[in-house]
């Protein structure tokens, strides 16, 4: 079992493509689910889509959620508050991370079987991975 990853973007295409990229680099053992756009396919965010992706990505080891910006962050925070009011739901943490780099860092570490806190840390450390 591995930590699941959910990618929340305003754009369905961005969430889907980054999920595809991270899956390619992490291998098939990690469940990575995109939650892009609204429930009727527009640009924006949907709490129902995010909740559905979280449930689909969870295999019992928890889910790391990575957001792009703005309403992606606010909607994910709202979902987290809702989940805290429920019993028995998936364990979810939000990573404060750059979207693409954080998704890859989280997915690669998750593929090694590390726990949720380590996966979130890996995503957040992507801020300090300089490119030049």
């Amino acid at each position: 079992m591995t930590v699941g990853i959910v990618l929340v973007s305003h754009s369905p295409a961005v969430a889907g493509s980054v999920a595809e990229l991270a899956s390619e680099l992490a291998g098939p053992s990690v469940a990575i689910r995109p939650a892009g756009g609204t429930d009727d396919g527009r640009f924006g965010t949907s709490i129902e889509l995010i909740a559905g992706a979280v449930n689909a990505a969870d295999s019992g080891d928890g889910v790391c959620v990575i957001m792009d910006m703005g309403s992606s962050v606010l909607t994910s925070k709202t979902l987290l508050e809702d989940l805290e009011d429920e019993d028995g739901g998936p364990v979810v943490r939000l990573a404060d991370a750059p979207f693409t780099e954080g998704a890859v860092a989280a997915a690669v570490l998750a593929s090694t079987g590390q726990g949720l806190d380590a996966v979130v840390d890996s995503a957040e450390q992507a801020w300090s991975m300089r490119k030049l």
Partner: protein
Amino acid sequence: MAFDAQTATAWITASEAAVKADEARLTSLDAAIGDGDHGANMARGLAAASTNIAERAPSTPGDVLVAAGRGIVAKTGGASGPLYGSAFRRAGKALGDAASVEAPVLGAALEAALTAIKELGGANEGDKTMVDALTPAVAAFQAVAADGGPIAAAAAAAADAAEQGLSATVPLQARKGRASYLGPRSIGHEDPGAASTTLILRALAEVTA
């Protein structure tokens, strides 16, 4: 008059009508410094709020506001969804199980809404957001309520204070949301979130008058 489930429902209905009537203005404010979808998003979110209230038929004002908040969170699509949705839900929870409340309790619920928005979005006064309209509005509502004034007077004072807060966002530079990327170019425009907050508070004044 006291604030009961019927008044709370009327508030959401009036807010929906006000936002629909001013949808083009909200969108043009947002097109200047945001992504130009605030009018449509607010109309969609408040329509979902009304639908959710109609389906659940809540019997207390607290449950009406919680149902409204859930509809807004589910369907708005932009940052205003979680912000207004959390605000209405937190206000509804603050009202508890009471069948009707007077001005001091409604004032405390509005303060809970403001706290929810500040916690979720991380904005403070002066950041050019809905907080700049809601903060003076809550203070004005509570000042009237503390003097023993009725809800109608408190809500009218809150709406007036929100309008002043909205005007005061014009010279501010945005520090939250898409507009913050514009830096000094965000100066000279009303904040769309402060504008929709003002409409919603004016709707409260109208239905309680």
